């Protein structure tokens, strides 16, 4: 009986090793699109993310205006014409990790996150693959996926169609810290 109690307590203990809420205030989000005339590339370090290691819930948000382009005209057009960032200031993803792996041990765990991607005010159900890395209690995540412009009602005017690819590659990386209230 004692042994059972000890095992139970030990099990409860390990289960609590990576638990609770983790946050990231400077998640990196970059977009890239190969296009015939010029590649489009922008990066933001101002993404925010919340990860609940207990439930597997994951939320991401990035202000569209924080994406920095090499060319200022491109950045202006991106905000004004394509993303309409005054109307839709943030792109978000809210989902839940399917089959949450046991994060008690250090390692890299491939995961799929099912949820809703909200870009340009259009919500899409997506299952996005990613990787969770646990190293000495520190949690970080990486993900890469494609966003099709037409899925999110992002119009590409025919006058400039050669400049913009129809699909944008999005890379997200975040390092988390435990959330303290």
């Amino acid at each position, binding site marked *: *009986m004692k042994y059972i109690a000890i095992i*139970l307590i030990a099990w409860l203990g390990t289960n609590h090793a990576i638990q609770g*809420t983790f*946050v990231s205030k400077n998640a990196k989000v970059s977009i890239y699109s190969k296009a015939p005339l010029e590649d489009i590339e922008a990066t933001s370090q101002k993404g925010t993310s919340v990860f609940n290691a207990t439930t597997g*819930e994951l*939320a991401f948000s990035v202000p569209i205006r924080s994406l920095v382009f090499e060319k*200022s*005209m491109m950045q202006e057009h991106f905000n004004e*014409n394509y993303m309409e960032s005054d109307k839709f200031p943030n792109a978000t993803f809210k989902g839940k990790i399917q089959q949450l792996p046991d994060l008690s041990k250090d390692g890299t765990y491939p995961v799929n996150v099912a949820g809703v991607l909200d870009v340009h005010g259009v919500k899409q159900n997506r299952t996005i693959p990613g990787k969770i890395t646990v190293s000495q209690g520190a949690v970080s995540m990486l993900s890469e996926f494609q966003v099709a412009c037409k899925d999110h009602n992002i119009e590409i005017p025919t006058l400039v169609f050669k400049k913009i690819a129809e699909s944008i590659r999005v890379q997200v990386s975040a390092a988390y810290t435990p959330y303290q209230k």
Partner: protein
Amino acid sequence: MKKIIFIALLLTAGYGNVNAQKTKKDTTASATDSLLNSLSGDDKAEPVIATFKATRLILSETSETIKKNNLNFMVIHRFGDIGGTDGGSKTLWGLDNSSDILIGFEYGLTNNLDVDFYRSKYEQLLELGLKYNLVKQKSDDSMPVAITVLARAGLKPYKVETNVYDDYANRLSYFYQAIFARKFSSAFSMQIAPSFLRNNLPFPYLAGNDKNIFSLSAAGRLKFSKRMGIVVDYAHPFSSFRRNSNSPKFYNPLGVGIEIETGGHVFTINFSNSQAISPINYLADTESNWTKGQYRLGFTISRVFDFNSKHKGTNKY
């Protein structure tokens, strides 16, 4: 007995724990949301961008400046009178004539300051100036307008046989303007700009003409699609000489047009009674009247070249 109590305690502890998790689970959706909101909620008011598409509407300079290491190349054209004595079919409604052609370069020294050079056919005017975006409009209306100031010197270099230009300083003009612009919505932007023009030699050279002219201009844009908008541009020079003069008669310049943006290029196709393109010329000397058919087709082509170095390599985490 001790064992049983221990197990019972453990069980209740475990049960309580499960309960706690359950209630937590029920609220996590909103808890995650509110936590995310609180993380991203500290964003400051963003500066409003793209109040206007280009640095010029029809007559006016806009509050926009050229960004750092970008070069804006402009060609602005005004044809001849469509109607009236100089218009009609004999000049193909003014298309055979050009009343003014301006070629201009604007280069961004910083994101808010540009240096500008223009050459006009009208009076062969050469202009060199600076334009500075002093204040940006903020999205939360903590600053309701953008303020841009510009200063410019003009030189009329042409050779003359008369003694009017004996003193070289008489070839010089100066123009100063403050532009107050507001983007009311993504479709509607407006600006009001008080300005001061100094012609060292009153222009046109007439007895009683003013060397100094204060003026106020107003301009607006209403977009009817993402890339097209109607633009209206008006300037009012405050000058009793201009108001009272009968020969020549002066009129206030007014332009209406359509602006088309193609991603890199901005075109305007417009009609205006002003023959000249530069404010140094049109504020001092607009002698054409809309009601007499003395308006003309004009266009502006503005193309921005970016000299910021391109990314090398691919983007990696």
